[in-house]
């Protein structure tokens, strides 16, 4: 029991606190590659120590609170944006079993709904941060972001409804097991696993769009688009408060990627693996498979950010309410019809 807790929290801690600096480095290097630049290359070999140098710099910077700011809200806003993102990771099964140890922090019977509920609280960090700064650009960013997050949460929930109907459960580890079978008994599809992306391609596209929008990542980075809003909601932030926002954004990105992997890409399972094998070696292998898929999705995140231009705000809203929501509703109806016909 104590070992299972230690292993679960160890991996949880590494993924939520160790990954962001590595991601920042990866993002800068990949961006440089995409834009035909060199990227960080001065601190350490290949610039690998750059994230550590950045962290030390941020720790020693002066922590400025603007004179007109609301001190209490200004201070708790970075925490409010950091904590929900890390908390939602608790329900992700990042492996099968290592001996007796279940490789998941919390196995809740509300499963995936817990993640959506906790992620929806992340809007407060941006909203309070922008408002408490008592500055025009952060306030604009906060208002934009509240509307954007609320809108795309609807699409995300609707896309999830279709997936819950497909798997017949809301529990994440049962979802992974449901994807660990071939897509069809016979025929050409027998070679494909029953991953969510093959069963529900429309829901997959919608969910990925929502993940980008919920993370405020390009092309949906309305709350911090530097061309219009200086720095967006964290314009007035400095030092570790700024760093917490920054880290929160990358943890949210990791959590969303982990959700994509768990719901649509088979989780820790890879075709050919025996789900009943609970040995330690197999457990480590499942963690590695999960990590490989996770890094693949994170690479996709970074790739898209440095490839696509930013939406205009009205385009963001129109895409959500006139594009994604009708498609998601039709997708649910089709899923229901197919479910009734083939049950």
């Amino acid at each position: 029991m104590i070992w299972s807790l230690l292993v679960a929290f160890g991996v949880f801690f590494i993924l939520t606190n160790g990954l962001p600096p590595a991601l920042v480095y990866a993002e800068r290097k990949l961006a440089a590659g995409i834009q035909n630049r060199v990227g960080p290359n001065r601190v350490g070999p290949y610039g690998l120590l750059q994230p550590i140098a950045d962290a030390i710099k941020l720790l020693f910077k002066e922590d400025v609170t603007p004179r007109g700011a609301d001190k209490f809200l200004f201070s708790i806003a970075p925490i409010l944006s950091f904590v929900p993102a890390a908390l939602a990771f608790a329900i992700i099964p990042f492996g099968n079993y290592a001996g007796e140890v279940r490789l998941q922090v919390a196995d809740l019977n509300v499963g995936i709904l817990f993640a959506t509920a906790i992620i929806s609280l992340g809007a407060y960090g941006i909203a309070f941060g922008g408002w408490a700064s008592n500055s025009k650009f952060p306030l604009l960013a906060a208002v934009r972001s509240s509307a954007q997050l609320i809108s795309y949460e609807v699409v995300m929930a609707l896309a999830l409804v279709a997936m819950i109907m497909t798997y017949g459960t809301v529990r994440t580890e049962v979802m992974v097991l449901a994807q660990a079978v071939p897509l069809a008994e016979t025929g050409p599809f027998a070679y494909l696993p029953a991953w969510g992306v093959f069963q529900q391609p429309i829901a997959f596209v919608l969910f990925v769009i929502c993940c980008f929008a919920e993370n405020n990542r390009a092309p949906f980075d309305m709350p911090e688009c530097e061309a219009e809003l200086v720095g967006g909601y964290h314009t007035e932030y400095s030092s570790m408060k700024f760093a917490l926002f920054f880290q929160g954004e990358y943890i949210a990105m990791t959590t969303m990627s982990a959700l994509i992997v768990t719901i649509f890409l088979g989780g820790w399972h890879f075709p050919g693996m025996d789900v009943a094998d609970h040995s330690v070696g197999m457990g480590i292998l499942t963690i590695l498979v999960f990590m490989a898929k996770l890094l693949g999705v994170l690479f996709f995140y970074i790739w898209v950010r440095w490839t696509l231009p930013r939406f205009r705000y009205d385009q963001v809203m129109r895409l959500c309410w006139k594009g994604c929501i009708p498609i998601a509703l039709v997708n649910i109806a089709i899923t229901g019809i197919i479910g009734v016909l083939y049950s």
Partner: protein
Amino acid sequence: MAAADVIFLVISIIAVGAAALAVTRKNPIYSALFMMVTLLVVAAVFQMLSSPFLAVMQVLLYAGAIMVLFTFVIMLLSLRPEEMGETAPLPQRIFAAVVALGVFALLAFPAIEPGVPAAAASLAPPAAEAVRFPPAAGTGDGATVEFGATAYFGHTIFGRFVLPFELVSILVLAAVVAVMVLAKRDLSKRDVADDGSDRDPPPLSVSAAHAGSIASLATSTQPTSHGPGA
């Protein structure tokens, strides 16, 4: 005192304290913050009453969606002190206190009156109903249909209470349509163009239903400065 009682006591104190702070704060954004705390703690109460699904829905809908909309509207209005109206006159405040105490007495009555819980229990579905549910499709929760679980909620709402559920959804739809009609200045004019000339975000469906109550709440909250520095 059992551990559950201690936890219940702690979260009750937080809930009531945050609720009291929510109504006494002069700054509407702090009212919203403490209201959110209250809603989150009430979710914990639901969890203690072995209703995890209800707890998650409380967080998702009330703390995560509706309170975000409240903060959104408060930030959007950005009322100056003189726009917020004056403090309510004394008779109005006394009347409000009396009504609040009356509602409190009504809610507290079942807790102290021994006959009421028994009467309420007779309205609850028989325990045997829990096992009558067919197992969910696929690899689902068929074996673990228990009170408060997601599957139990689904079967109860879409089985036993499907008609009231649909009636409520039609009511909500009517409210949404009504707000749309009220909010749109000129119904005959078609103001949506593909060249992006319509910069207004489309109305939010849920928010539309709540917009009226949110606006009235934001304005009726104790008037004072809106921004932190004002």
